[in-house]
């Protein structure tokens, strides 16, 4: 194992109509999805979603929640025809999730690719905003953030494919302390303390105040540090998809790289049974809140067997465990992606420990705080001032000219790891090394014949067959360019493709 594994990021974007806070966000989100889909020549309902393998109430602890006791927002598998939904040629899903437009990236295999296809999602949203900016109308604005500061939060979820053989209890035990501390390097920063910003101030993470329990199935209420949703979207007895709901939407490439990279490495170590004694944190939910509320990073938490540690020190403990594990397993033979994540991890922790402000080109919350502190100092503003909250919101506006982060990025004030040309390519094209290649390429080649798709299937409606033809893709690492590229190349029609697939032996999984 290394940092490389099947992973992806789903982001729900904040949505608003300037001057009209009462505009219906479901209708607006539908317009966002439809506008983009139409522009790229797809119909938002045409390539619909295949819900057959969705099981949002299946719990990783081994039981199902009864449909009757579930909150209506948990019933994500009941299709509502009024909600727009499209699978893009890059293998991503663009749709309306509750009251937000959501971009779910295609499956990728490295943190760098996760960044590229996550930023491709921003480009999609930026394009939708442009399309809806009709002269004479207020238009629609989209924000890559996670709260309105008034009690509502919406998610940026990470997904990691894991071995089913790893006991879930081990994941919970070793991941909770890591998640308590991860925000110290991965938070996006937020003006206001408490879910409704009832106390003025600045905190490290957008999401932390919204978490109430350690482990649970819910994602919209009583949010848990570890989400137990068990929908592998893959061969269920071989794989688990860990659905991480705690993180913030990131802007800085380095922050995003660290979020995906360090989490993947910690998971690798857990899968390998190599962590040893757990770094159990006392009262983890409360510890999460306390760490988030202290940008000086001096706040400590109680760690079993280690005494009191700061968030940075707790992250150093994980860094050292991972470093030793990699050394034992691979000696000097680390792949490039793993080496990069470990180097960045060490550099960022070193800076955060010396003086957090040193990480202002790499870490989202530091970049935001440094800017806000300068603004405060110039105008003598109190943390309750509206201008600071406005900067916090507008920071994540997806537009190039209005989004404050985008302005800083364009001016070269933050470090960029993934080139814009790669992102541009990722808007239209799928990753080549996962099943997203098959999904995206089918949508690009045969948009009229793809009746529906999902993470683990593509459904064709072809003239030669009386019924719909479902191609399952239960192996995320199959359906790659190396695997089905030549076959897709040879197929002159969707009919042709189905015939070639039938001749081959289970080409996609």
């Amino acid at each position, binding site marked *: 194992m290394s940092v490389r594994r099947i992973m992806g990021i789903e982001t*729900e974007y*904040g*949505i*608003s109509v*300037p*001057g*009209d*806070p009462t505009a219906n*966000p479901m209708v607006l989100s539908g317009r966002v999805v439809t506008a983009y889909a139409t522009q790229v020549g797809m119909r938002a309902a045409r390539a619909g979603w295949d819900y057959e393998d969705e099981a949002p109430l299946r719990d990783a602890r081994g039981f199902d929640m009864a449909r009757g006791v579930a909150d209506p*927002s948990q019933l994500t598998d009941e299709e509502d025809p009024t909600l727009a939904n499209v699978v893009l040629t890059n293998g991503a899903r663009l749709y309306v*999730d*509750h*009251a*937000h437009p959501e971009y779910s990236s295609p499956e990728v295999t490295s943190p760098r690719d996760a960044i590229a296809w996550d930023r491709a999602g921003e480009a999609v949203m930026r394009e939708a905003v442009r399309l809806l900016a009709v002269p004479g109308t207020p238009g629609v604005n989209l*924000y890559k953030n996670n709260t*309105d*500061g*008034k*009690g*509502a*939060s*919406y*998610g940026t*979820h990470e997904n990691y494919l894991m071995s089913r053989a790893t006991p879930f209890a081990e994941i919970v035990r070793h991941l909770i302390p890591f998640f308590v501390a991860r925000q110290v390097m991965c938070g996006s920063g937020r003006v206001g303390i408490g879910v409704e910003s009832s106390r003025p101030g600045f905190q490290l993470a957008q999401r932390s105040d919204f978490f109430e329990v350690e482990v649970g199935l819910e994602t*919209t209420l009583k949010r848990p540090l570890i989400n137990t949703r068990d929908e592998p979207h893959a061969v269920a007895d071989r794989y688990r998809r860990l659905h991480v*709901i705690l993180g913030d939407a990131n802007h800085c490439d380095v922050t995003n790289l660290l979020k995906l990279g360090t989490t993947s490495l910690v998971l690798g170590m857990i899968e390998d049974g190599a962590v*040893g*004694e757990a770094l159990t944190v006392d009262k983890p939910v409360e510890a999460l809140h306390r760490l988030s509320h202290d940008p000086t*990073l*001096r706040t*400590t938490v109680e760690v079993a067997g280690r005494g009191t540690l*700061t968030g940075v*020190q707790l992250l150093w403990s994980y860094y*050292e465990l991972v*470093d*030793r594990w990699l050394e*034992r397993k691979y000696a000097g033979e680390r792949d490039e992606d793993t080496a990069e994540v470990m180097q960045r991890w*060490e550099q960022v922790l*070193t800076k955060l*420990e*010396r*003086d957090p402000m040193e990480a202002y080109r790499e870490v989202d919350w530091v970049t935001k705080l440094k*800017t806000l502190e*300068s*603004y405060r100092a*110039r105008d003598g503003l109190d943390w309750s001032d*509206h*201008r600071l*909250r*406005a*900067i916090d*919101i*507008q920071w994540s506006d997806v537009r190039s*000219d*209005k989004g*404050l982060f985008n*302005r*800083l990025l364009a*001016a070269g*004030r933050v470090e960029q790891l993934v080139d814009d040309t790669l992102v541009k390519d990722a808007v239209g094209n799928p990753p080549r090394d996962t099943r997203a290649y098959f999904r995206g390429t089918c949508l690009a080649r045969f948009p009229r014949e793809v009746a529906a798709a999902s993470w683990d299937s593509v459904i064709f409606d072809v003239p030669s067959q009386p019924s719909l033809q479902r191609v399952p893709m239960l192996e995320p690492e199959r359906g790659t360019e190396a695997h089905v590229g030549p076959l897709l190349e040879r197929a002159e029609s969707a009919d042709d493709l189905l015939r070639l697939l039938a001749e081959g032996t289970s080409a996609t999984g």
Partner: protein
Amino acid sequence: MATQEHKNPQRRDADPADDAPDPAPAAAPAKQELDDDVDSVLDEIDGVLESNSEEFVRGFVQKGGQ
């Protein structure tokens, strides 16, 4: 637990309050240069920030999501 020494010189287990900041790197830009740089960031923000920030903040109301 492996016994291998960690090689990072900045690593400290002590109370964070004891951590003295390291001296600034030699190549740090002059103060005037830094001030100008900060000013230009703030000017840029002033140029695009929503003019009625109070109304803008009040109007940014979201429904909860996942």
